């Protein structure tokens, strides 16, 4: 029988250490919505999403109340729209109409974000892929809840450098199109390498073509819980440190698994995966940087940071994997800057640079995330940063991503406020040397030698 101490431990995690389920994401295939007529396509998309997701938000609230664990977000991911809209959309403007339909569906179902305004172009771009990509700046400027992602490379295919070049320009155009709003559009746009089909986290969530018609994926969180557990083992050796992270990650993931199963049962929709990520928020005590500092670093970004993050990421996976029947998505530690007060502090005190962040992305679960850079950063430099991240992902067979925000009108030393979970960020220095000739070569980088395993 459960004891009062165990009950108190769980409730302390929830009340004081900010344990929560970060998102219940409903993945919906839109492949059966395809039509050659744009109006019919929009109607099919709206009808399918609102039919399947009508009880999503209320079910989330119900579970939250009955189990006493906060469920922060309920979201939807859909099939990459470049595939769905291919038959009906002849131009970027046509795709923008689909984005508006998605936005309306998201609003009417009550979810806070809908992901999947996406194109998968890891080896090459079709004309419809390109039209979707070119529509992204307008689509993100004219919608509120739609998130966009573009997969520009993979370990199996190499890196599509034409797409990398284009995405540098698109990130800049998106920043321009939303400059009245601190270039917020870029917070809803992520460029990926090795993008997973079942990621429940935004902005990179989409419902891949390998997925079933509809599925429930859940993203857990809990940096505060890990940090608190580590406070109890100060000065102990690495074995004790790792065991503590692992055991705590197990408990955190079990909560996610329970919520996923409950949501699946109540909605009558199959359970897909639990994404066992440590996702920070700007709230004090909910920081991944805080965990690294608790391990013994003076500040996140100090020498030792990459090793500390590597062990954290690995132990989170080791603890979490046994706690869930299906693990997927991104799974690991997220290191966004604007969404993590500890990371923001580290940047402000000069301890954490873009280059150190890049090194950290080799061992964390994703990549350069929510980083504000000067508004006058050239598109080719943004492409260069995307190419670097994609190369890390391609060679190390992991997901990497870039979500940079070139804040129009702001420079190093300024701070930008994005609001809510997106937080605020100091504008960071970018290496001022150019790479335009490299980016302008065109074509693609071949798949690495270790991808040839057949």
């Amino acid at each position, binding site marked *: *029988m*459960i*004891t*009062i101490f*165990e*009950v*108190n*431990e*769980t*409730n302390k995690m929830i009340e004081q250490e900010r344990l929560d389920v970060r998102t219940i994401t409903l993945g919906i295939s839109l492949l059966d919505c395809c039509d050659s007529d744009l109006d019919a396509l929009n109607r099919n998309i709206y009808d399918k999403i609102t039919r399947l997701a009508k009880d999503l938000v209320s079910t989330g609230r*119900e579970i939250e*109340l*009955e*189990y*006493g*664990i906060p469920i922060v977000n309920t979201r939807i991911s859909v099939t990459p729209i470049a595939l769905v809209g291919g038959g009906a959309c002849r131009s970027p403007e046509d795709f923008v109409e689909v984005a508006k339909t998605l936005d309306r569906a998201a609003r009417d179902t009550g979810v806070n974000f809908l992901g999947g305004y996406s194109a998968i172009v890891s080896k090459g771009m079709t004309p419809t892929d390109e039209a979707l990509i070119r529509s992204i700046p307008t689509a993100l400027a004219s919608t509120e809840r739609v998130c966009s992602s573009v997969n520009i490379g993979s370990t199996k295919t190499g890196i599509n450098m034409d797409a990398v070049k284009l995405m540098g320009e698109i990130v800049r155009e998106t920043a321009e199109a939303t400059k009245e709003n601190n270039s917020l559009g870029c917070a809803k746009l992520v460029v990926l390498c090795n993008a997973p089909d079942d990621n429940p986290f935004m902005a990179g969530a989409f419902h891949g073509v390998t997925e079933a018609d509809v599925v429930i994926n859940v993203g857990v969180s809990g940096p505060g819980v890990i940090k608190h557990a580590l406070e109890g083992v100060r000065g102990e050796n690495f074995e004790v440190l790792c065991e503590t992270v692992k055991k705590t990650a197990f*408990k955190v993931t*079990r*909560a996610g*698994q*329970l919520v996923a199963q409950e949501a699946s049962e109540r909605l009558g929709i199959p359970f897909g995966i639990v994404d066992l990520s440590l996702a920070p928020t700007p709230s004090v005590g909910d920081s991944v940087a805080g965990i690294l500092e608790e391990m013994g670093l003076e500040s996140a970004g100090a020498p030792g940071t990459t090793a500390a993050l590597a062990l954290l990421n690995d132990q989170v996976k080791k603890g979490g994997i046994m706690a869930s029947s299906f693990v997927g998505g991104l799974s690991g530690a997220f290191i966004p800057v604007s969404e993590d007060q500890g990371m923001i502090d580290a940047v402000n005190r000069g301890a954490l640079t873009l280059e150190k962040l890049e090194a950290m992305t080799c061992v964390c679960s994703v990549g350069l995330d929510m980083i504000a850079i000067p508004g006058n950063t050239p598109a080719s430099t943004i492409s260069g940063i995307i190419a670097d991240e994609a190369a890390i992902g391609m060679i190390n067979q992991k997901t990497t991503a870039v979500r940079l925000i070139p804040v129009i009108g702001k420079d190093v030393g300024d701070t930008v406020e994005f609001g809510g979970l997106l937080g605020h960020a100091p504008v960071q220095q970018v290496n001022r040397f150019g790479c335009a000739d490299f980016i302008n070569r065109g074509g693609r980088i071949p798949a690495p030698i270790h991808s040839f395993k057949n």
Partner: protein
Amino acid sequence: MSKTIITVAGKDAVGIIAKICTYLADNEVNVEDISQTIVQGYFNMMMIVDTSGSSKPYAEMVTELEVLGDEIGVKIRCQREDIFTKMHRI
């Protein structure tokens, strides 16, 4: 249906258990186990209850117990047992 765990925490006072048990009895909720400690004047109690005989919707009970806690001056949480067993038992 799984059991429910009710936890009560706050400053000790006369009649805390009586008031909560009266509410539970009125709503046909069966109390199966109670464990309780008082540390430095602070009251800490856990009840394992069975709500299967109750006609009250679960969400309503959660809210009403919270309100009752506010009246008594303690924090009352009502949660399905699974959240604890899943986390602490393999």
